[in-house]
């Protein structure tokens, strides 16, 4: 498997016919949206496989919300095609809405509505609906059933938003920045929730600017910047193709001659730091094997070692020349 940079779909027109809604519930082709002169979404294409968690990763203003809200039928594309479970959000919005569950980046409920009431009310708008009790249990809001919206914490409001997104037992769930503004503890709780969704074989499309979120949750990630997809692959594959080197830091009982370490395959740089020696490697596993052999041969005792792999953050900087969050 190779990483495909930029517009993976339009580069493979042959694959189009094989993309059935059963296999790919969300297909986006050459999508574009302008606000005045600003090209917020500029020729974006991707497909989301059934049962996968697909992430749109990008900095503020990259065009994530514009993209997903066109999929949800809330904004009208200037250009391009969208299919959600085989339906077009522009011409068949109701068929799409019946099958889609969404949390918006910013929305709210009336202050005085109770958790149970909100779930029952919004459930009644759909052909297919899940029981409020089940949903509250799923998002761990069972004890808050009779609490009004204005008394819920930010995390609880977000969990309610997720429960509302599930109220019609949707085929596809779209979460726009589900954890932004939440504390790390609450964020981890939401990760568990989203992971549970995956185990129920739901298709999830989420947007985020948290690297951690993309790496932990997503099967595939589209890195989006200034309205364009600059890379699309699994997080592991994206990292594997990164040109940033892995760092191997180790401490030894006896001093080592750095000159000799340079002979070890794939070593691209050596530095002596306070904690010990640091090797930059283009192929961490191979370098490690050779390093251990070398230490053994030279009877150098290894005290401590750890490897830092490049992260999606590094990949992002490589691709865009910018950090995700300044």
């Amino acid at each position, binding site marked *: 498997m190779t990483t495909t940079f930029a517009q993976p779909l339009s580069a493979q027109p042959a694959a189009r016919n094989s993309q059935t809604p059963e296999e790919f519930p969300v297909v986006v082709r050459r999508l574009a949206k302008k606000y005045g002169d600003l090209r917020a979404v500029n020729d974006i294409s991707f497909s989301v496989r059934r049962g996968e968690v697909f992430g749109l990763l990008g900095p503020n203003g990259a065009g994530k919300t514009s993209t997903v809200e066109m999929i*949800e039928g*809330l904004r009208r594309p200037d250009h391009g095609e969208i299919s959600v479970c085989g339906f077009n959000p522009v011409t068949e919005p*109701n068929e799409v*809405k*019946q099958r*889609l569950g*969404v949390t*918006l980046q*910013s*929305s*709210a*409920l*009336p*202050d*005085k*509505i109770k958790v149970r*009431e909100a779930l*029952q*009310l*919004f459930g*009644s*708008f*759909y052909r297919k609906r899940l029981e409020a009790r089940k949903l509250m249990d799923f998002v761990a809001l069972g004890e808050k059933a009779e609490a*009004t919206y204005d008394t819920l914490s930010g995390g609880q409001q977000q969990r309610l938003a997720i429960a*509302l997104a599930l109220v019609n037992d949707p085929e596809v769930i779209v979460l726009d920045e589900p954890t932004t503004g939440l504390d790390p503890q609450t964020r981890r709780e939401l990760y568990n929730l989203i992971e549970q969704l995956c185990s129920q074989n739901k298709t999830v499309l989420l947007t985020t600017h948290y690297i951690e979120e993309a790496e932990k949750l997503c099967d595939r990630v589209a890195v989006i910047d200034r309205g364009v997809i600059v890379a699309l692959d699994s997080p592991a594959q994206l990292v594997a193709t990164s040109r940033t080197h892995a760092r191997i830091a180790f401490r030894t009982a006896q001093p080592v001659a750095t000159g000799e370490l340079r002979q070890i395959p794939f070593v691209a740089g050596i530095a002596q730091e306070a904690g010990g020696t640091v090797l930059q490697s283009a192929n961490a596993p191979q370098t490690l094997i050779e390093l251990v052999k070398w230490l053994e041969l030279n009877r150098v005792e290894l005290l401590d070692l750890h490897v830092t792999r490049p992260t999606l953050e590094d990949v992002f900087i490589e691709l865009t020349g910018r950090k995700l969050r300044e």
Partner: protein
Amino acid sequence: MNAWWNNTLNSIRLEFREKQTMFWNFAFPLFFLFIFSSVFARGKPEVVSYLLPGLLCINMMSAGFFGFSIGLVTARERGILRRYQLTPFPAWMLISSEIATSFVIAGLALGVQLTAAKVIYRVTIAGNPLVLGLMVGAGTLAFLSLGFLIASVADNAKIAQVIGNMLFFPLMFLGGAAFPKDMLPKSFQRLAEILPSSYVVDALKRVIVDGQGLSQNLTNLTVLLTTCGCAIFVAAKLFRWNAQEPMPLEKKLWALSVVAIFVAAALFIR
């Protein structure tokens, strides 16, 4: 239809949980009634019954211009409407359901005000209570529709508040709700004839004070229902789910010209 009922009943329930709404809808109009009746009318039933149409009209106007319109704009600003937009529940159902909610709340508030006037100040209603109900209903609908129009035009709650005030005070003072129109100069009286509040006050006076029936109120009824229809037509065309999408200038101008044509036509017919 089930969804429509669910939403309406839910919204009515929520209104009752809002202390502010309760105060402005029920406590404030009663306070108004007491001041007017005890201070100005000195508790004389004939005088109170003469003031009552204006008080009811003020109550209806504040339900439409402030209660309904600010509520709708705030729901749009907070993203509550967008949450609805994600569902298959259509816009017209949502709006009609919210109008129905405000109609019920305003109806109850008006009922409380009327009952208080009857019980405390011994006001007698000369006409048919059903006709009174009909005219009160038509007036309330007209002002709620104008409130919907304000909400559709205004980009945020502040602007809605300003427009609401700009309509409320002229309609109250010139329309004969605060004091009789005869006290106004002639030119103002002519202007007052195109204000919906004039027709509400006139209709209620005819029923409460003069004991007239439906046949003498047909003009009033027609004017109020026409106002209602036109306002809803324009407001629906301008409806927005999302506060982030401000209305383009052309649409604002279009709305303004429709309203101008409507007012001109009203002036001409008079």
